């Protein structure tokens, strides 16, 4: 076995061991991840139709606006969305998918 393969095997074993040791928290985190990934997918799909404000997104995906804002803030932080000017009223920023995310 090459050293790289050995290292890979050791890493996999360590991760399996960790998942066992932290069984309860891992299970909760996995559920959270599943829910988060599906929410993000829905939001991203809505944004492929063009820039949206937080209330517009909230309406499009049927989610409370404050929750949408939390996701948008995280997506902006990690480069998935960017601002795209304001809506007609001038009260809300619009968000679009970044080129990388699109």
């Amino acid at each position, binding site marked *: 076995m090459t050293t790289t393969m050995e290292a890979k095997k050791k890493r996999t074993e360590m991760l399996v061991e960790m998942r066992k040791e932290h069984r309860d928290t891992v299970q909760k*985190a996995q559920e959270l991840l599943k829910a988060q990934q599906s929410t993000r997918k829905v939001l991203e799909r809505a944004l492929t139709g063009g820039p949206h404000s937080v209330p517009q997104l909230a309406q499009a995906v049927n989610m409370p606006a404050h929750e949408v804002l939390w996701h948008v803030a995280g997506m902006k932080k990690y480069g998935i969305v960017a601002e795209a000017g304001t809506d007609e009223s001038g009260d809300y920023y619009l968000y679009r998918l970044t080129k990388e995310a699109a």
Partner: protein
Amino acid sequence: MPTEHIKVDALVVGGGIAGMQTALDLGDQGYQVALVERQSSIGGKMIDLSKVFPTLDCCSCITTPKMSATAHHDNINLLTYSEIESINRNGNGFTVQVTKKPRYVREDDCTGCRSCELVCPLEVSEDEHEFGRTSHRIVYVPFSTAVPQKAVVDIDNCIFCGKCIQACPSDAIDFTQQPEPVEIETRSIVLATGFETTPIDAKKEYGAGKLRNVISGMMMERLLAPTGPYGRVLRPSDGKMPASIAYVQCAGSRDQTLGVTYCSRVCCMYAIKQAMLLSGALPLAEITIYYMDIRTFGKGYEQFYQNAKAMGVEFLKGKVARITEDADQNPIVRVELIDEFGKTRVTERQHDLVVLSVGLLPGGNPQAKFGVPVGEDGFIQVPDYNVFPAVTSQPGIFVTGTALGPMDIVDSIMMAGAAASATASYLESSNGSGKEAQSQPERSVEYA
């Protein structure tokens, strides 16, 4: 796990501005210093502020160089993400047991490149600095100017997918890390444990933390900071740019019902500062400050207040009785206004966003943890505040910054100087050894 041993002249507990400045002042004089900070970065509350009154200088621009100087000082041994477990008197000095919490990232190897963070698949609320208004990944560098600039893993939310391990160019991730015991032998201790703010849910009349568009002064600092959760001032319920913002003064200070009878000293000034910054960030917004009396005690502070008035900030004397919200989550403030002749009138006013000018409360539990007496207000009490403001009744234990009581940054820095000089004179005189590895004539001084 073998115990690491550190021998120093002074242990500074808390890495806010007061602790950092004390450590720097002592380190510059040649004393060996250990600085223990419980959070993953030094900087304290100051690194979270937007700009500072009364100069409106960028807070990060002032704090970051201090953080860096502290971390790179030859005479300062910095222990972040570390908790003091016990302090025992040992002859003229102290033996202090500290636990370094595991970051699950080897500090020596991590370069802070964030490659791990960018591939991590899950996000959770960022509560430590951003009040849950945005997220961080499970492995993350706490903030862009964190010192040390090292990642930390939120192990309780990790799924152990291993993506971070694969992405890390320095092979720094280590899920097998355990808490590390450190024993510090020190001849003196400086407590710089700082303050907390009144919890947002402390007053049920002000919505008990349930109204989304009623936020704390500290959260407004984050909204005003370019590094904040939205990078802009938006209201939390729906991301609207607020057109009408109100401040409620003394929301947690001078309030018998909360058992906080003192004035927190900084709230009037930070509300005025934020109002001025908001006038710049949202030029069309109307800003109202509901106050009972405005306290502008420091150098240049009264002029700062007058400038805010001249900029159009509305100052209304009155007592806010209640805050509720309408169907669109706009806060409704019920206030008893007092006119210049002392006549009162009760009215209700609607705003887009309300900021509670929350007060300063003692941080941690210094009495239990460090055996120093506290006053009725819960802050550390010293026997002779007028003459030796930094000297506690425990020989060899000193105090600085807001651990002593509410104060602003200028006063915290001055108190740091006072604490460093009191500590230095104690070290030179108490048991004769003076600076480490350097013998000094024995002198004895009573601190009691």
